[in-house]
């Protein structure tokens, strides 16, 4: 088992390198050198050139990338923001937890919302308990998170005043973003749980359980659900990428000081170190999340577990 985890971590390294290189190359295309940006318009050309030399601006692309990665990994230095002149890593360090918190809340919400309703709609297929949740899920899954966020803001912030529309004053600030992000994601979870459940119920081993005299409830809870929820985990992980897009918009909308809004303002200001560092960190974290989901799948499904522990056929 440990070997499996280790192997997967090892496999991630080329992906991380590839991703970081790709982003680096793309962002590199933004015009502007660090020297002029950091020292400002009024600085002397010699100073600008010296700083550029120091930062390795004149090196060829591959070496610049190498230097960047070296600095990032071993010196935890992602450069200085052109706008604030402060180290990018500090700001990212402050903002990443906020983003993670928002994302995590949303996922939790979506699971609590989507999975039980999905099971219900599968078990009561073609009744009102099925049509209503499914219709709702379809509708919700098609919404962009920022739109739901705006509607929530309108109702709960401006009209009712229950939750703040901006900033992270208290736990209340996290509620609307959680719902805004969680609803569309939850809609997807619902639909997927439903189809997974429906498929599982049709399996032969469910029939065997009934033939043993199990009650319908046992059949659902003990036999069907465990099997049906396995693919739901993987799908939850895979859809995470879609969540990120909505998360960035939600952060911006609700004025949350997260990594997403940081990157957006960085792009608008052509702040190369911020954008490079921000996107790479985001992408790497994302890869780790996917890895974690894959691993959890291995823990939960005995077939996969056996495969990687070396036991079994």
């Amino acid at each position, binding site marked *: 088992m440990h070997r499996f985890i280790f192997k997967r971590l090892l496999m991630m390294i080329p992906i991380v390198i590839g991703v970081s290189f790709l982003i680096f190359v793309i962002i590199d295309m933004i015009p502007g050198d660090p020297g002029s940006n950091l020292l400002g318009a009024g600085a002397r050309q010699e100073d600008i050139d010296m700083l550029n030399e120091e930062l390795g601006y004149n090196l060829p692309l591959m070496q610049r990338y190498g230097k960047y990665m070296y600095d990032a990994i071993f010196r935890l230095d992602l450069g200085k923001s052109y706008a604030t002149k402060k180290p990018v890593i500090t700001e990212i360090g402050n903002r990443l937890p906020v983003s993670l918190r928002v994302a995590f809340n949303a996922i939790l919400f979506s699971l609590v919302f989507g999975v039980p309703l999905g099971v219900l709609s599968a078990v009561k297929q073609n009744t009102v308990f099925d049509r209503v949740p499914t219709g709702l899920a379809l509708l919700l899954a098609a919404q962009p998170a920022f739109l739901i966020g705006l509607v929530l803001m309108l109702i709960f912030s401006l009209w009712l005043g229950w939750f703040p529309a901006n900033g992270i004053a208290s736990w209340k600030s996290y509620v609307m973003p959680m719902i805004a992000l969680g609803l569309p994601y939850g809609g997807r979870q619902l639909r997927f749980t439903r189809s997974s459940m429906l498929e599982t119920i049709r399996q032969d081993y469910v029939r065997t359980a*009934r033939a043993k005299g199990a009650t319908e409830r046992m059949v659902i809870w003990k036999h069907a659900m465990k099997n049906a929820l396995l693919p739901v985990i993987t799908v939850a992980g895979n859809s995470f990428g879609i969540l990120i897009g909505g998360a960035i918009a939600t952060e911006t909308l609700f004025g949350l000081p997260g990594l997403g809004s940081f990157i957006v303002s960085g792009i608008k200001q052509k702040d190369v170190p911020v954008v490079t560092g921000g996107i790479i960190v985001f992408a790497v974290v994302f890869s780790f999340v996917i890895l974690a989901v894959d691993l959890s799948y291995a823990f939960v499904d005995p077939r996969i577990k056996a495969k990687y522990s070396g036991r079994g056929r």
Partner: protein
Amino acid sequence: MTDKLLSIKNLSVQYKTDLETVCAVNNITFSLKKGETFGLVGETGAGKTTTALTIMRLLPAETGRITEGSIEFTGKLMLDLTEPEMRSIRGEQIAMIFQDPMTSLNPVMSVGDQIAEAMELHNKDNKTKEQIQARVDEVLLMVGIPPSRKFEFPHQFSGGMKQRVVIAMALACEPVLLIADEPTTALDVTIQAQVISMIRNLRDTLGTAMIMITHDLGIVAQTCDNVAVMYAGELVEVGTAADIYTSEDHHPYTTGLFGSIPNLRSKARRLTPITGLMPDPTKLPPGCTFAPRCPKKMDICEDEHPCVWRNGTHLISCHLFAGRENWRKEEA
């Protein structure tokens, strides 16, 4: 008669969807005594599995309909029982094993747990956990699997072993009736022999009655006391094993079935299959259902559905036996 364990009379079952109605089982009648093994033979699609599911009342709720008939088991009328009453019978008094062992077991539960579940569901005398586990071990040994493997998962067993687990699960509560729906069809031939032999031994030791559903006449010969041949949802011929295998008189379909078996010693250059296909169960032909394919078809066969003719223990539903010596009409 009072020593009848299971008695099915005039049973008809349909599957009804919005588009069509499938007449899966049409007016069948047969019965079993305690400890008897009854073979139900027929091609795929004849209605054998539907019959088995009907006995267990496991038909799909949305589409399965029992349109007529009765099923009596140990004196109780099954079709009148409530669902909780049926549940207490399933797995404990009547157990069923299904065709495909690869998919019959829950992949995320250990085999030991699955066998134990069968007992936990019917724990009337409140056995303790240890007692149940002891029984699990016992039952695994009976089917030839070392009890140490009870913590393993289905995917860790081969096809034949999986089927043994399924059999162990079925026999755990010592049912009086076991319904085996093509238990060896999905297995290799060599494993088939092992499993059949094991089923026979268990039956002899435990005295379980059995309905053996199969399309393999060889298995029927090895295991069954009485046999019924099913075609298009009807029983065209019923009798003891001797009747079916040694008598001169048969329903043309039965003759066809026997004739279809390849014979190593025969010098024939071609197999003699039965021409044609089984009729569409949504559009059964009037008259005898086998008539379109019957080599001995007469005019009356297309118009009138044959009644059942009896000669001792042998029953055949065919116009050919009307008026034949020793054959009397069987009143419904």
